[in-house]
């Protein structure tokens, strides 16, 4: 992934919390602007809407809302930009996007959680007849 590394310039560290915050919003805007092209590249129209992808991105950002060190925020931003670059340059495949941002990490195990508290018989019944 050397070529992406070159493309992402490492900016100087944020001097204050306010600057770091400003950079986060800039990044979010960049990501949102990239959504239409991402939808087209990965052919996502039939599985997700732009609004859902925006929500997914903001959710990823909010996951780190407790971080108060500008240096750490800069590092996380760098990771985010790298990821965004990889996506827009088609360095990923469709199922990566779907798995990470459309279905979510819990996607495939959601059904199992619903069966909590039901009997062994019912769990087996849902999987197969035998």
């Amino acid at each position, binding site marked *: 992934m050397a070529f992406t590394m070159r493309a992402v310039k490492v900016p100087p560290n944020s001097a204050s919390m306010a600057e770091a915050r400003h950079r986060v919003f800039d990044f979010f805007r960049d990501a949102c602007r990239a959504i239409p092209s991402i939808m087209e590249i990965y052919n996502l129209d039939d599985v997700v809407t732009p609004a859902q992808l925006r929500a997914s991105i903001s959710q990823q950002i909010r996951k780190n809302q407790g971080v108060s060190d500008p240096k750490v925020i800069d590092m996380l931003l760098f990771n985010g930009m790298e990821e965004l670059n990889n996506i827009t340059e088609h360095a990923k495949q469709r199922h990566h996007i779907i798995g990470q941002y459309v279905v979510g990490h819990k996607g495939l195990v959601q*059904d199992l959680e*619903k*069966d909590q508290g*039901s*009997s*062994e*018989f*019912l769990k087996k*019944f*849902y999987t197969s*007849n035998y």
Partner: protein
Amino acid sequence: MCLVEVEKSPKPVASCAMPALPGMKIKTNTPIAKKAREGVMEFLLMNHPLDCPICDQGGECDLQDQSMAFGADRGRFTDMKRSVVDKNLGPLVKTVMTRCIQCTRCVRFASEVAGVQDLGMLGRGSGEEIGTYVGKLMTSELSGNVIDICPVGALTSKPFAFKARNWEMKGTETIDVTDAVGSNIRVDSRGPEVMRIVPRLNEDINEEWISDKTRFCYDGLKRQRLNDPMIRGPDGRFKAVTWRDAIAVVAEVLNQVKPEEITGVAGKLSDAESMMALKDFINKMGSDKVLCEGNGPNPPADIRSNYLMNTSIAGLEKADVFLLVGTQPRVEAAMVNARIQKTVRATQAKVGYIGPPADFNYDTWHLGTGPDTLVEIAEGRHPFCSILKSAKNPVIIAGAGLFEREDQGAVFSTIETVAKKFNVTRPDWNGLNVLLLHAAQAAALDLGLVANPTESVKSAKFLYLMGADDVNLDNLPADAFVVYQGHHGDKAVYRANVILPSSAFSEKEGTYENTEGCTQWTIPAVPTVGDARDDWKIVRALSEVAGAPLPYDSVAAVRSRISMVAPNLVRVDEREPSVISAEVKPPVKQQVSPAPFKAAVENFYMTDAITRASKIMAQCSATLLKK
């Protein structure tokens, strides 16, 4: 083939025709005997084509086996072989008459077992041919059996032609559910597909024959199948969903209706396990409206002898007078009819028949069409009474024409009067029989699925149809929620709100009780289709989601529950005769209505979801039914 050498006899002797005498010395394995057999074999093969590689009988051919055992290793025949024009015997039996060796087994079968005079020998000498009379088809409900008895490949199965070889198929010994007889069959399958159905010997039930419906319904198992749970959307179209969602929807609706508005209907192909689960579940939800279709408004379920064939199917052979009331055994239970035909042929038993004009393959005396004839007999005013009076072992068979009648109780009590008057039930002979129509009926009555269909359907807000397609839904409230659990997209699916796919009889282990009270199991031959589940498992899963879990998780546990309700249903392959006679019944105050009996089966070939989906059965209905 049966030639043996007898000492002091100049020629080999045909052992099948020669009585053994004292002091006779018989040699079966000498060079002379072998040479003689080789000669006979050579004559048989003289006009038999050597087309085993393209013959459907290849691998299960008697002539092939015989020639391997007794034949010469080379042929000496250099002339042209005889060829014979193929005959058209209808949509079931394919003929390649050049292969025929004129054994006339099919002719004997047609006239002696099937009781039709359709097949015969035409011509003499080398021009001898088996055939029907010009342009006629073989119209018997047992015609498929000529495929089994033909020792060569002259008569083979038309739907099975060129489909499979017998050594690539797995045979599963199971039973048939298309009628209440429970014929023993072997289902031959290749991978997930049922390739054909052949009979299995059971002298007490079907001997070695099966009806055409049993034999050829199997292509219905591959068409119109339900393979995913489905929910009807607001636009009226079905949408496939997961089991979890379908069951959750059903459970939610179930918890919103009042207990007395819940109705469960078991279908005519249901096994005892699923009916037990359904009854327990509906009862647990607080309703007692659970019934089995075909049993009529008030089934006589209190005493077992009131709904079973008490004489037993094999026992019919001892009878010398038959009185058929509202039943046409030929279309209702072809194997029972074959037994009656056998008895009539062997002992010249007399058969009296009360019911709509019907087609019999033995001599009958059509006494009348309605219950008034029955009353006349009960009062001793009918000429048939003298025949009944002189009979040693009289048999009365009441059939499906009675079940749907409102005055069923009165008709049955008239029949009992006749039985008492003419000594039909004695300690050593019980000739009072009920011939059931569907595979599920006997077990349903044993388990107590006896609610009144008209009232139960009329008051239902939640209707659970477990494979029930022929129940009358005209009076069902428009806002009722209908769950259809079954294996075929048949009639009732059009009204269903939710579809739960289940397995057919060839795919599940199920207990069935036949019309004479013999309990038998089906054995799964092929895997279930798509995402289908066994019937009792669906009910069990639904009960848990609805908050009233049934206390059984395995087939064994369901059967132990059944044994508490009807212990005879767990004693497999045994006929459980009923011990209490009808005498203890309270007197009936109902009046017999003069309405004539109706025919219960309109089309012999299409009676249930499987046969209605079958293409072969549709062809049969089109060509073989007598209009």
